[in-house]
């Protein structure tokens, strides 16, 4: 099964918020903030992801050719190819489906919230108001994906700003689009290499940094950098054990010899 993705063309989004509604409907989420008890829109200037809102369309004021322009940025989990959230979870509560969707299983979660702080895009949110909370994030509508269907959000987009398909094909298409209109588009496909590549890809006519995307991300997978350390674990244990045993045997022998020679020893009990 090929890895699926969505290509988001920022220039095509009109900020209608249909995708955010579709997401809530499909995932049975309500429109009332569980903490403030206020009805809230998942699109607009103030729109923020939370445990009850897995995607937002955020309105952002940006500069384009010396003029102020309004852009609408859909945010949700990027579905990283090598996801940090999954690699840092010590209860293995995340896994990737064959289609490349990063799934979370609340059954396994211990609630340490390491995934939240480790996600380079600050995506996972917590059910702070619950006594037995879970982490919440976009699941890439994995049950729909498994049936070969598009995710709820992409299937309702009226302007084709969200295009669902095989990631490889989408990436090629993204490069085609930006190359065809070099004056319009920023010559960068966001998500192609960020943290080693994400399955959601973005193209835009204003710089990604101005739209609130993190631009200081490593261009290689973060987990693989952490593994550079965790890989050492067996070496630390074996090396440590060898070193300490060596010193132990050497120094206890030296002590015994010293005792035999009748030299003064402070400790009377030797092993």
């Amino acid at each position, binding site marked *: 099964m090929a890895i699926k993705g969505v290509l988001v063309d920022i220039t095509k989004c009109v900020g209608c918020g249909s995708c955010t509604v579709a997401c809530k409907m499909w995932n049975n989420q309500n429109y009332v903030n569980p903490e403030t008890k206020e009805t809230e829109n998942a699109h607009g200037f103030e729109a923020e992801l939370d445990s009850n809102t897995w995607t937002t369309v955020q309105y952002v004021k940006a500069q384009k050719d010396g003029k102020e322009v309004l852009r609408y940025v859909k945010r949700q989990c990027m579905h990283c190819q090598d996801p940090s959230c999954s690699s840092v979870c010590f209860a293995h509560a995340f896994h990737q489906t064959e289609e490349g969707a990063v799934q979370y299983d609340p059954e396994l979660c211990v609630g340490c919230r390491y995934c939240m702080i480790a996600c380079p895009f600050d995506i996972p949110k917590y059910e702070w108001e*619950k006594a037995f909370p879970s982490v919440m994030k976009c699941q890439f509508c994995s049950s729909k994906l498994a049936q070969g269907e598009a995710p709820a959000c992409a299937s309702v987009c009226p302007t084709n700003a969200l295009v669902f398909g095989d990631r490889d094909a989408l990436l090629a298409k993204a490069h085609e689009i930006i190359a065809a209109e070099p004056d319009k588009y920023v010559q960068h496909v966001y998500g192609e290499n960020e943290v080693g590549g994400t399955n959601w890809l973005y193209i835009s006519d204003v710089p990604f940094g101005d739209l609130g995307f993190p631009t200081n991300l490593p261009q290689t997978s973060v987990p693989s950098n952490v593994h550079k350390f965790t890989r050492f674990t067996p070496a630390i244990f074996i090396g440590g054990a060898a070193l300490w045993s060596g010193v132990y045997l050497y120094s206890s022998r030296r002590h015994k010899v010293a005792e035999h020679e009748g030299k003064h020893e402070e400790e009377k009990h030797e092993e």
Partner: protein
Amino acid sequence: MASKRWNFRITKTRIVMLVIFLLTLLFMVWRYCVGLGASTNLNDAYPWGLWIGADMNVIALAGAGFSMAIITHVFHIHKYEPMARRCLLISFIGYVLVLLILIVEIGRWDNFWRPFVSPGIHSPMFEVYMCIVAYMILQAIELVDVGTEKVAPNFNKKMQKIMPVIFVIACVVPLGHQASLGSLYLAMPAKLDGIWASTAMPWLFLLSSFFVGPAVAILEYLWSSKRYHMKTDIDMLRGLTRISACLMAVYLVIKIADLVVRGQLGRIFEFSAVSNLFLLEICLLTIVPIIITLLPFGKTKGGVMVFSISAVCGLILTRVNVVFTGMHAHLGGGYFPTWFEIFSTVGLFCICILAYLYITENFPIFYGLPGDADGETELESAPSGFNQAIM
């Protein structure tokens, strides 16, 4: 002495500590009912707060058990043996404190066992968790060894067959979790400030927890000699500060080399809040203590005390700087702990202090201080000479 009854001197301070702890238990019930949102200021932007900061510190300071064990059991410098014993105790109690705080901190405490059956082996957190559990078991065995020495000598003799192995393993396991704590933040290279975000972090965390161990041991020693009116052996403490200072110098060199290699050296002289906190950290943790050991002042009781306090404060600052200062630019200023977060941390700390006092007062084995040829009689009379004013 075998017929001695358990006793626990009740003082005002102790009653206050007990009350704080009992209230904490009560509030914990409330926290389990209302969840973390209502009881803490943790939020989606700040998923980790005071509790995690406290845990990182307690684990680092509890490294005293492991560094003193290496010095006495591996290098066989036996004059530190009594100190190593008490460090074993405070370290074990420290790890208990870590677990107690975690039980309040984690969202799904009922799922604490999941990592054992569904291990996320690539997570540094997994290594921390497994090592701490393993280490606490080893420490418990060591405590049984210490405890049975006088009470059940026959049993103890049998234990001696396995103890060398236990000692060595117990000196290996903490290498894993002390270093892994540093690697927790390797996963946030784009969030943590460049002054700290380095692949050297695991090694720096490991090294610092190791050399601050003697400082913790010294403070405990000075405190208990005051409690029991015992004479202090400054020469011995001075030896410890020297061992520690050598490693501090190594740490300082690695830290500076690391900043140079990553092109961050200029950043520490920006004199912004962040860089100032870093300078303070490195001064307290290494520069001030090293200078003290070089001065004549370092040979005095005041000298070793300042040495230790500086090193401990420096260590606390290193961890706080990573958890808060270094993440501040990314996370923003949206977090300050609630009264409950602070109160529960204090309350759980109180019960650990009480446990320490209870154990040291009822198991004479812990305060047979070196240099006392008649340690036994000293032990018998110690509780009567106990200085109530101190605690």
